[in-house]
């Protein structure tokens, strides 16, 4: 089996890859001509990010609650999440791709969910453990059972932690989606890689990058806003 099957960087044939006028860092012409492609990639990027975060949240919160209720599980869950998080993204894709198909969107989705999961579990658990014992006592005194206390007292108080986790997970997911470009499922990453392999077309690379960073910032701000709406009491305290 040959290692060299992947072609080396295609040599620039027509225009040299230098800073010549033919290869600007940004070009409206490129954006206009390729608006359809760019919008498709952007849509894919947003879609897979939201899907990842929602799935990860649905799995992470119960896991965090489990780790919170059953103390002996806390250590193993955190340790496992730490070990999983050190696995490089490309390696995770490499291990998943042969099982799930090499050009499959689900492959990227599962890898992304795994990474987002770890950030969310960690932060949700931190949020839950920071609920003070006095508050829990008071809740118990008011007659809340285990689930009632969780739903009405502990989870709302852990919300700032969960939202922090959501922000971390969302921003790093937006950046991570680009890795999917290796199997052609990278959203804006496809633009970045495409530009690189397409005679180092700078306009395509930079458009992908700028949209990617911009998307991360917009989603981050949206989550900050969501956090404020969900925790009106913390806003009242600061103002």
């Amino acid at each position: 089996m040959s290692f060299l099957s992947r072609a080396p960087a295609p040599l620039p044939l027509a225009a040299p890859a230098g800073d010549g006028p033919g290869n600007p860092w940004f070009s409206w012409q490129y954006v206009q001509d390729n608006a359809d492609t760019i919008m498709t990639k952007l849509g894919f990027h947003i879609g897979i990010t939201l899907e990842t975060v929602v799935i990860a949240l649905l799995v992470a919160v119960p896991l965090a609650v489990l780790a919170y209720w059953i103390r002996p599980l806390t250590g193993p869950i955190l340790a496992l999440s730490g070990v999983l998080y050190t696995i490089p993204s490309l390696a995770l894709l490499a291990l998943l791709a042969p099982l799930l198909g090499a050009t499959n969107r689900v492959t990227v989705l599962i890898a992304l969910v795994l990474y987002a999961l770890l950030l969310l579990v960690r932060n949700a658990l931190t949020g839950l453990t920071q609920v003070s014992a006095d508050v829990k006592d008071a809740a118990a005194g008011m007659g809340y059972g285990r689930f009632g206390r969780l739903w009405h007292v502990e989870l709302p108080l852990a919300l700032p932690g969960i939202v922090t986790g959501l922000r971390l997970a969302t921003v790093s997911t937006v950046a991570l989606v680009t890795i999917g470009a290796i199997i052609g499922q990278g959203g804006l990453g496809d633009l970045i890689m495409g530009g690189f392999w397409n005679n180092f077309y700078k306009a395509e690379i930079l458009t992908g990058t700028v949209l990617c960073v911009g998307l991360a910032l917009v989603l981050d701000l949206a989550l900050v806003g969501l956090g404020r709406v969900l925790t009106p009491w913390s806003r009242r305290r600061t103002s």
Partner: protein
Amino acid sequence: MSYFRDGLVWLNDPLNWTNPGGLLDRLQEHLVITFWAVLVGCVVGLPLGIWLGHRGRGGGVVVTVANLTRALPTLALLTILPLTPIGFGKLPVILALAVFAVPPLLANAYTGLRSVDAETKEAAIGMGLSGGQLLRRVELPLSVPYLASGLRTAVVQVVATATLATLVNGGGLGTIISAGFGLGISRGGAQIVAGGIAVVLLALLAEAVFAGVERLVTPRPLRTVRRRRAARAATTG
């Protein structure tokens, strides 16, 4: 699981290790890139973090740097840097990875110096230590565990992201994986999985080795307290 077994079979073939461009060559490339990237990261991140921590301000800078690098895709930096006047080759890859090594080093150095007990510092100043002496004899020794923790995070991070260097022909172990994808799943599946296993093992090894280093340089009485603090630092940093 047959793919997994195929991957192990691939790893078991000595030629796949010793061939030119085989695992050993790629491993060496990977380690060289990692070493230089971490070194550059240390040269930039540590003095800045130590200085900010010593002065006791600039926490905003640290947070901003950490957040910005999180939003920036590694892939973008890897593809953009070679097209700047830096040019192609190992240098842009090393610089791109160094950018991701800076935040953990910076944040941990800053946190480490900030977390030195205020009373300890007052006592040292009361004994007549100057600012520089305070830094060298009190603050730095006390924050060594934090510096080691930052180094560990940075190394693991760079080892992991160095895998992506292959996407811009930067070499490293990721090349095994991307070459496998180039062959297609049916022919390259074993190689993809083998590359994945090799990279995972290297990342876990780096984590284990530097966790050991961190433990070694942490004075025994600080070890249990530290672990709790480290968990908190990891979630915020």
